[in-house]
């Protein structure tokens, strides 16, 4: 089933790379929600996530001809997305340095990412808060690898490709992140309650 989807996606990527607009649109539709979610959890702002997602797909359509293996479209797209998110945070830090955005904005955004989601329930807010607290306690690479593996559901090989690191390095970061996850009662209690 999964292999079928991967095959179809690779086929779409191949056609899109050859200039087929319909395939490109289908490819965008396939990844839209996934990439938006990935960006949302890294920016904690719906508006920023919308803008960045648009930019990511524009870049994807522009650079698709440079994709060597159509079967590797997912890690390739995540690589673009991660770079855009990194640029976003860098820009934000620069603006904050010049006083254009304040620390207060950052804190408000970090804790209240839910304000722009009217359909939120208490559990979802609590989950986001606990996830944020947990990932804040991880190093940059631990956080990125953990999120890509368990929130974005990338395989280790795909993470290695997206981050341009070896699989062993990815596993090491993942192991460290999981150790910290095991020591985090807040998030685990919430998940255990949900898993029952």
């Amino acid at each position, binding site marked *: 089933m999964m292999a079928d989807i991967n095959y179809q996606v690779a086929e779409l990527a191949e056609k899109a790379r050859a200039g087929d607009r319909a395939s490109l649109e289908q490819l965008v539709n396939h990844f*839209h929600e996934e990439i*938006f979610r990935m960006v949302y959890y890294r920016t904690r702002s719906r508006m920023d996530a919308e803008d960045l997602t648009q930019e990511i*797909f*524009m870049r994807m359509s522009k650079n698709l001809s440079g994709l060597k293996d159509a079967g590797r479209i997912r890690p390739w797209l995540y690589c673009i997305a991660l770079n855009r998110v990194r640029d976003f945070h860098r820009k934000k830090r620069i603006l904050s340095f010049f006083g254009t955005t304040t620390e207060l904005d950052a804190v408000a955004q970090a804790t209240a990412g839910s304000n722009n989601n009217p359909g939120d329930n208490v559990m979802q807010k609590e*989950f986001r808060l606990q996830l944020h607290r947990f990932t804040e306690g991880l190093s940059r690479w631990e956080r990125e690898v953990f999120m890509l593996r*368990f929130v974005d559901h990338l395989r280790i090989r795909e993470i290695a490709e997206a981050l341009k690191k070896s699989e062993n390095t990815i596993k090491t970061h993942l192991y460290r992140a999981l150790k910290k996850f*095991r020591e985090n009662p807040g998030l685990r209690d919430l998940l255990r309650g949900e898993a029952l």
Partner: protein
Amino acid sequence: MKSKDLHLDEDQVIRSVVDENDLSVSVRDHLSTCSACQRKKEQIEKELTSLGRMAKESAPLPRQEIRLPFHKPRGLWSWRPVFATGLAVILLIAGVWWSGLLVTTSGEKMTARIIGETENDRQLMAEIDALEEYVPYDFYPDISGESDPDYFVEFLEFVVPLE
């Protein structure tokens, strides 16, 4: 005791979650037969699966459609940043032009005032010159206290010698 009989410790359970193939063969063998160790591993995996599911449920859905380069031209509303920029440029140009006009107008007013003052000065100087040329003798005898006009001329020559 053989390693095959030893239960996996916390580190090994975590490693098995990351990638079971990274465990030694004996530990892997134990894991495949020990239900207690499998439960430990499955418990972590269940929590992580739950995390993935909750992450999906707790994130909002995108509202905007993705626009690709070959899509139709945008609607009027989506051109609002361009309109806003254009309007700002027009206002800026108008502002610069208006301020230039103000400077010109105030400059003209200033020139007119200077011309007026110069004219007044010129008239005053002309009056002074006229006074110098044609001294109104009739006024000054009162000052000198003498009624004799000749005395007055002498008096003036005494005060302001001509040579």
